C-alpha cells in the first residue's frame, strides 16, 4: 500500500510537471526557442531579463540599441532612418554592466549584430562585477543555448502564468505588442523643469533614486569583466557608447555623495582604455549645457524626452559629440565646475519658477551649429 502511495504521488507529480513543461515549451511566452509564431508577441517590461536573450537570438537585426531605462524609448525605425540597417532595442530597466555583458554576449554569439549602440550609465558599474539590477538570481539559463538547464523556464510558474495569459488572450500583465516600442514607457509622461525636480530632497538628491555608491576600482573591474571582453572578442562589431545626458542635478547628486571625482576619473579611464580599439567610439552628451542645464528636456533628473532621444541619434550619426582627448578633459572640467558652483536648492528653485510649457512633451534640441530637428510622428 505504501509503495503504491509513493508510485502514484511521484507518477502524478511528474506527469503534471511534464504537462506544464510541454505547454510552456509550446507557447514559449518569452520567445526563448523561437520568434513568436503561435501567439502575437508580447513584450513584458517586468521580464526583460528573461525575454531579451530570446529576442536577441531569434529576431532579425544587425544593430542593437541597449542601455537602461534611458534607452528604452529609442525607436528602432528612427535609428534605421538615420543610420540605415535594421535595429532592435534590447534595453533593460536598471541595466547593470553585468546585465549588458550577458545580453550582448548572447547576441554577439549569434553573429548578427554589426553595430552596438549602448548607453554608459555610471550606476551600471556600481557593486560587484556580477551585480545584476535584478534582485532575484539572474536567469543565466536564458542566455545560453543549452537545453538541460532550461527547467526553471519550462516548469516555473512565472512562465506558466504568461503562457496561460497568451493562450487565453488575457491582459493581466503589463506588456507592449509593438516591436518598435517593445519597452517604451514615455506615454503619459511630461517633460518640463518643474516636473523634473518634483519630489526631490535638496539635501539628499539620491533619496528618490537610491543609487548605490561606487568606487573607481569597482567600476573599472566591472567594465573589464563585462564589456572589455566583448569589444576585444568581436573586433568586427562596431561599439558606439554614449553618455546620454542627465539633468545637472545628477551631477550635483554625485557631488553631494562624494562620487563626482571618481565618476569623472572613470570617464577619462574608459576613454583611454578604449582608444586603442578601432571598433569603439564614444559620444558624450553630458557636458552639453543646452541640454544639461535646461530641465525642460526632462521628466525627472535622469530621464529625457523622446524628442531629445531622437536628436541624440542624429547627432551621433553626424559625428557630433564624439569624444577626443581634449573633449574628455574639457567636458570633465566643465562638469566639475558646474557641479561645484551650483547648489541643489538654487537649481530646484529655478526649475519650480519656470512656467510650464504649452506642450510639455519635451523640447526640440538643436546642437550648436546643428541640424534640423528630426520629424516627430
Amino acid at each position, binding site marked *: *500500500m*505504501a*509503495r*503504491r*502511495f*509513493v508510485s*502514484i*504521488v*511521484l*507518477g*502524478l*507529480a*511528474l*506527469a*503534471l*510537471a511534464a504537462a*506544464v513543461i510541454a505547454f510552456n515549451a509550446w507557447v514559449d511566452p518569452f520567445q526563448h526557442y523561437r520568434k513568436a509564431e503561435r501567439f502575437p508577441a508580447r513584450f513584458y*517590461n*517586468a*521580464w*526583460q*531579463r528573461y525575454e531579451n536573450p530570446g529576442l536577441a537570438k531569434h529576431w532579425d537585426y544587425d544593430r542593437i540599441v541597449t542601455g537602461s*531605462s534611458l534607452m528604452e524609448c529609442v525607436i528602432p525605425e528612427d535609428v534605421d532612418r538615420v543610420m540605415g540597417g535594421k535595429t532592435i532595442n534590447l534595453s533593460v*530597466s*536598471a541595466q547593470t554592466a553585468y546585465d549588458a555583458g550577458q545580453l550582448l554576449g548572447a547576441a554577439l554569439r549569434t553573429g548578427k549584430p554589426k553595430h552596438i549602440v549602448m548607453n554608459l550609465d555610471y550606476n551600471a558599474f556600481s557593486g560587484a562585477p556580477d551585480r545584476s*539590477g*535584478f*534582485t*532575484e538570481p539572474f*536567469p543565466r539559463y536564458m542566455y545560453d543555448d543549452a537545453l538541460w538547464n532550461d*527547467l*526553471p523556464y519550462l*516548469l*516555473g*510558474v*512565472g512562465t*506558466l502564468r504568461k503562457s496561460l495569459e497568451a493562450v487565453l488572450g*488575457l*491582459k*493581466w*500583465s*503589463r506588456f507592449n505588442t509593438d516591436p518598435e516600442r517593445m519597452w517604451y*514607457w514615455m506615454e503619459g509622461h511630461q517633460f518640463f523643469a518643474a516636473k523634473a525636480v518634483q519630489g526631490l530632497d535638496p539635501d539628499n538628491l539620491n533619496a528618490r*533614486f*537610491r543609487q548605490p555608491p561606487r568606487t573607481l576600482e569597482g567600476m573599472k573591474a566591472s567594465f573589464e569583466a563585462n564589456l572589455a571582453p566583448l569589444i576585444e572578442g568581436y573586433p568586427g562589431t562596431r561599439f558606439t557608447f554614449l553618455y546620454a545626458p542627465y539633468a545637472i542635478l545628477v551631477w550635483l547628486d554625485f557631488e553631494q555623495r562624494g562620487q563626482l571625482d571618481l565618476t569623472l576619473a572613470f570617464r577619462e579611464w574608459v576613454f583611454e582604455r578604449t582608444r586603442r580599439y578601432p571598433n569603439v567610439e564614444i559620444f558624450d552628451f553630458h557636458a552639453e549645457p543646452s541640454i544639461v542645464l535646461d530641465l525642460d528636456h526632462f521628466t*525627472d533628473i*535622469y*530621464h529625457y524626452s523622446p524628442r531629445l532621444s531622437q536628436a541624440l541619434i542624429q547627432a551621433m550619426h553626424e559625428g557630433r559629440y564624439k569624444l577626443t582627448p581634449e573633449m574628455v578633459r574639457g567636458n570633465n572640467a566643465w562638469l566639475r565646475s558646474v557641479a561645484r558652483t551650483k547648489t541643489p536648492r538654487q537649481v530646484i528653485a529655478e526649475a519650480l519658477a519656470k512656467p510650464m510649457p504649452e506642450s510639455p512633451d519635451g523640447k526640440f534640441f538643436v546642437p550648436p551649429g546643428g541640424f534640423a530637428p528630426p520629424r516627430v510622428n
Partner: protein
Amino acid sequence: MLFNSYEFLLVFLPAVILGYFALARLSAWAANAFLAAASVAFYAWWKLDFVWILAASITANYLFGHRLSRDSAAGKNDRAILTLGIVFNLGLLGYFKYADFFIANFNAVTGANASFLRVALPLGISFFTFTQIAYLVDAWKGKAAEYSATNYVLFVTFFPHLLAGPIIHHKEMMPQFADRSLKRVDWENMARGLALFALGLGKKVLIADPLAPWANSGFAHAQSLSFADGWITMLAYTLQLVFDFSGYTDMALGAALMLNIRLPLNFDSPYRSADIQEFWRRWHMTLSRFLRDYVYIPLGGNRGSEARMLVLFVVTFALGGFWHGAAWTYVLWGTLHGVALVVLHFWRKLGHPMPRPLAVLVTFLFVSAALVIFRAPTLDDALAILRSVAGLNGLGLAFTVPEWSWIGRSGVAPAELAQGVLTAAIFAVALVLTFTPRNSNQVAAALDLRMPRTRYAYGFLLALALVFVQNPTEFIYFIF
C-alpha cells in the same frame, strides 16, 4: 544546494536515495560513505570554497572527540581538551559570523577606525558548529564515542540537517546509521517521508515565499506605516517565518525518513502555545534543547537561587538570540524572550492562569512583536513598526505599502489586483493553518495511505510545489 531547488528535487534526492539503498545491499559502510560524500557534495554545490571550512571543523572536532572519548573511557576528566575544542568551535564561528560585528562595536565604542574583515558567512556554520560542540560535551561526559571517521563525517554533514538543522545529538543519530535493518527500503517510511517532504515544500513555496514580498515591503517602508500597514507587516513576517522554517524542517525530516533516518522534531505548532515556556518547547525545539543542556544547565540552571535562575533565563536567551545573527537586534530579541520567561515565572506565582485562548493570543502577539525586532534591519525601524502596530501614529486604516495599496483603491490593474488578492488569500490560509489542531508532522504520521484521494492530493500538491519552486517576482523598476 537548497531543498527547494530543481537540482535537489529532481536529481540529487532521487539519486541519493537510489544510490544509498543500492550500495547498502553491498556494504553498510559503503552506503554510509556514499551518503557522507553526497552530503559534502550537497554543501559544496553552494560554494566550493567553503568546503575546507567544513572539512577543518570536522577534522578538528573528530580529533578532539576521539581524544575525549578515549580519556573518558579511561576515567580521565580531560576538561582542558574540552575547553580547547569549544574555544576552537566558538573561534571559528566568531571569525566567520561575528568578527565584523565586534569590529563595528569596537569602532563605535573607542572611536577607532578598524577595517572590517568582510568575511563571507559559510552556510550552516551555526548549525554544524553547535552540533559538534554538543558532541564534544557528550564525548567528555562519556555519553558519545565515535571512532569511525566515515560515521563522524556522516553525522555532521548528513544533508537533511546540515544547512538549517535540526541540531542533532550524536547519540540519537549514530545508532540509526549503524543499524543494518534500516538499510533496506521501508515503503512505509518512504511514503510518510515523501508526504512530509511534500507538505514542507508546499509550506515553503506556496505559503512562505509568496508572503515574503509583503513582509519585505512592509519592513522596507517601516518609517511610514499606518496602523493597518503595521499589523499586516508584523503578521506577514510572523507567518512567513514559521512556514518557511518549519517547512524547511519538514523537508529535512521527510528526506531523512525516506532514508529510514528519524531526525528530532523541531516545530510543533509553536503559535498555539499558551505561554512563552511552551512556545520554546514547540519552536526550534532542538535549539531550545541545546540551550538548555549546553548553556543553561552548565551555567547553574535551577540549582542556585531564584534570582540566579531568572538571570540565567535572560542570559541564555540573549545568547540564543546572538546565535541567530551578529546584530544587537537579535540579542534584544533573545533578551526579550528571556525577560518574558521571568514575567511568566512571577505571573504563575500569582496563581491566576489566563483562559487558554486568551493566553494563546497574548503569547502569539508577544512573539509577533518580538519578531519585528528580529527581522528589522535597525532598532529604529523596529520601533517605528511597533509604534504603528500600537496605534501611536494613529488608528487609520490606510493601506500605503505598494504590495497591498490596492485594497480599497479603484482602477487597480487586473494583474496587480489578482496578485494582491492571491497573496491576501494565502495570508488568510496561513493564519488559519497556524492555529489548526494538526501540524504537518501529525498529518504525515496519521496519513491513511490506502485512500486514493489522499494519493492524488499529495501528487497534485507535489506538482504544484514543483511549479512554484521557480516563482520569480516581477522586476518593477522603482521609478516606473
